[in-house]
Every structure is written in structure tokens, then in C-alpha cells.
């Protein structure tokens, strides 16, 4: 189908964006890469009065490092993330996740900020940001504020963004020595929506897991941080027994809703399978260095 009619503006400053947002309220939608938004408009699931194209705004793209913080501008595309040495070096978990985002032609255009603000429960970046305990920089007419990723996602397509606000960037603490990460996703076809996926990071020094983060996608309305499972893994040595222990803990903690193709029980089973794979991968990576 074709999108319904709407007006289009391409402001050159954040100030103009805030004015337009104040003027149009709920009738306005921000357009970044548009790879989800335009599909939604074409399907007539949404009918805004005006699209505010923010791709011309200065200072919202790019990947920069300052001290121990890596900052990703909201307008950085999936492709830029995929080809960034800073990200593959300092945030390997994110680098491992990018190839799972849709397909080449969509990664060329879709943005980091768009994926975060959209908050699709099956999307990769929200889970990665939750696993890495990232901060989001949010701008509004009255100034900037920061919200932790672990507080940002409120449910299916719901976030802590307030009316009139714009997501400007994500900030990540650069991964310390000794940490290893794994991103594993199961999908029906490469690049499709995940059935279930896992963003995992842990300190893997001395043959043991500690400071473990396990964030699941496709397992709830928002990314699900498996805190009890992570706690059960604290200080445990690599090996089959530890993996079995984690899988048992996960069964008590995770209750994924069914989707069109997979029942809740199937998803839980798959989540346990990929948890085992992820923990084994972390151990292998630690042994290799």
C-alpha cells in the first residue's frame, strides 16, 4: 500500500525540531532512516500529519570516544556501526549484533537512534544497550537529560521519551580488560525478526564467570535482563555443570510470551539453548587469549 498524505519538514537545527514538535504534538513523527516508520506508514498502521526529517541535523551522527566513554550519534547508520573499528574494538558485543539487523539495503539507511526510539521487542540494539548498561542522551526544549538503557525501555514500542523530546546519542562505557561477549540470535531467515536472541557479556578472567549481563530480545515487551541467572553464575568456573545451572536458573526467571510462530515453551527452550551456546562461546574466547 501507499502511505497516507503527510507534510514534510527538514529542519536544520534541534531548536526548529522542538518548535515543530510543540506545534504538531501527537501529529508529528520524527523521520531518521525511516526503515521501520515508512513501512508502518505504507501499511497504514500510522497516519501522522507531518514527518520531521532529522537527518540534516548537525552533530547527531558519528561515533566518538572520549576517555572511557564511546558515544554513538542517533543518526549513525547500521552500516557505520558495522564498519567502525572503534566499535569492533571497544564494544564487540554491539559489533557482533549488527549483522543480525535486517538486510544490507536496510542497514545502509536505518539508524542506531531509530532502532532505540522504536523499541521493537525483537530488535537487537535495545538488548545490547541493556546488557552493556548504556546511557541514552535525550534532548528537549528545556535541555538535555540522560536515561539508563535499563530504565528506558518501558514495554512494546514504549520508552521513557517524553513528548517533544529527541534521542540524541547512546553512551557506552568502554569494555574493561578481561571481559568477553557473545551475541546469538535465532531467526527464521537471516535478518528477519528474531524468535529469541541473547546479548551476553561477562568478565571471564581466571576460568570463571563474573559480573555477568544476559539481556534477551524477543522474550518480552522490552529487553529482559536475566538478573537471577547472572547472579547464579557469579564466580562459577567454566564447564558443562555451570551451563546446566544457568539453564535451570533461566527456566525459573524467563517467561517469554508466544508469538505467531513459537509458543512460550518453545521460546524458553530456545533461550536456554542459546544461553548454553553463549556461555560456551565466552569460555572459548577467554581461553583463546
Amino acid at each position, binding site marked *: *500500500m501507499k502511505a497516507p498524505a503527510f507534510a514534510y519538514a527538514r529542519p536544520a537545527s534541534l531548536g526548529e525540531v522542538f518548535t515543530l514538535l510543540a506545534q504538531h504534538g501527537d501529529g508529528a513523527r520524527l523521520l531518521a532512516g525511516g*526503515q521501520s516508520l*515508512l513501512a508502518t506508514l505504507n*501499511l497504514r498502521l500510522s497516519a501522522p500529519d507531518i514527518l520531521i*526529517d532529522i537527518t540534516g541535523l548537525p552533530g547527531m551522527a558519528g561515533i566518538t570516544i572520549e576517555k572511557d566513554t564511546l558515544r554513538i550519534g542517533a543518526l549513525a547508520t547500521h552500516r557505520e556501526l558495522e564498519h567502525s573499528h572503534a566499535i569492533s574494538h571497544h564494544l564487540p558485543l554491539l559489533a557482533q549484533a549488527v*549483522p543480525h539487523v535486517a538486510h*544490507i*539495503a536496510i542497514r545502509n*539507511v536505518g539508524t542506531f537512534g531509530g532502532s532505540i526510539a522504536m523499541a521493537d521487542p525483537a530488535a537487537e540494539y535495545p538488548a545490547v544497550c541493556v546488557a552493556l548498561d548504556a546511557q541514552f542522551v535525550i534532548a528537549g526544549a528545556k535541555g538535555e537529560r540522560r536515561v539508563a538503557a535499563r530504565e528506558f525501555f518501558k514495554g512494546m514500542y514504549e520508552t521513557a521519551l517524553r513528548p517533544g523530546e529527541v534521542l540524541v546519542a547512546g553512551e557506552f562505557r568502554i569494555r574493561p580488560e578481561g571481559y568477553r561477549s557473545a551475541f546469538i540470535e535465532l531467526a527464521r531467515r537471516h*535478518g528477519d525478526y528474531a524468535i529469541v536472541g541473547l546479548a551476553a557479556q561477562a568478565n571471564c578472567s581466571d576460568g570463571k564467570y563474573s559480573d555477568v549481563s544476559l539481556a534477551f530480545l524477543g522474550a518480552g515487551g522490552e529487553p529482559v535482563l536475566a538478573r537471577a541467572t547472572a547472579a547464579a553464575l557469579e564466580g562459577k568456573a567454566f564447564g558443562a555443570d555451570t551451563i546446566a545451572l544457568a539453564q535451570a536458573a533461566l527456566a525459573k526467571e524467563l517467561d517469554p510470551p508466544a508469538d505467531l510462530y513459537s509458543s512460550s515453551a518453545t521460546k524458553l527452550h530456545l533461550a536456554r539453548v542459546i544461553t548454553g551456546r553463549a556461555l560456551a562461546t565466552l569460555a572459548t574466547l577467554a581461553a583463546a587469549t
Partner: protein
Amino acid sequence: MNHDIETTITVNGKPVTRRIAPRTHLIDFLRDELGLTGSHIGCEHGVCGACTIRLDDKIVRGCLTLAVQANGRRVDTIEGLSDSGELAAIQKAFHERNALQCGFCTPGMLMAAQDLLLHKPDATREEIREHISGNYCRCTGYQAIVDAIEIVLTQNRAGRKSQVTA
């Protein structure tokens, strides 16, 4: 408020300026306004890849791009890349390997294939499959398409080697 917007796009090397309604997809503009019907429209929500075109040298979905967003930018379609001869080798390989039947997906598939030939000259079969995973074909079962792309990759690699030795 819903005014048409003056937009200038360089299509296959030639600048065109039109007043365009913001809701117009780039693919509809190319097909309906400029008559470039080589690129096809399939699903219109970014899944099938039939509308794959190039925007500033990167492949994109023509159905997930507004024509007004292409203002001041370059668009290349199957017509332009066919006429320039850029696609000659991959078109020949598609023909020889029977990599198409009804042909509906072929223009988009060729754009995705050419993108791989340009950017991943050492791609494996697995990487070929990954690269075209955003393009649906309902006739071939993909095997012949992967074969065709692999043949051109191999030819190109042989060409590179002989250039080095010569």
C-alpha cells in the same frame, strides 16, 4: 500544509527536478513519473527487495525511501546500470545459469548482487546468501542465483590475479 516540494535528483546521471508530494515513494516516482519501470514494486514494506535501487552508491529499498529524501542526491536504477554495461557480466551469468524464471525479482537481485561484487570480492557462498537474504525469489530456489554470482566472483578474482602477474 501538504504542499508538494521541489526536488532535484540525479537519476542515472541526469538531473531531474519535479514538485513531489511528500508521501511519494522514491520507487513510485521513478516508475510513474520518470517511466523507469525496470525496478519493481513487490511488498511495499521493505521485505521483498524487488525495489532495490542505488542511492549515493549504496543499495536501498525504493519503497522505504521518500522521493523528497533523495533531494540533491544520486539515484541509479537497473536501467542506468544496464545501459552503462556495469551489470553485463552478472546479467550474462544469470542468463547462462538460469538464475531467473519469471524475472520479477531479477532487477533487485542484480542490484544486490552487483553490490556484493563491488564490496565483497572474496565472498564465500555463505556470504553470497547472506548478502541476497533481503531479496525474495519465488521461482529459482536461489541455488542458480548463488551459482551465477559465484561464477562472476571467480572470474573477477582470476582477472585480478592475471593483472597482478602481467
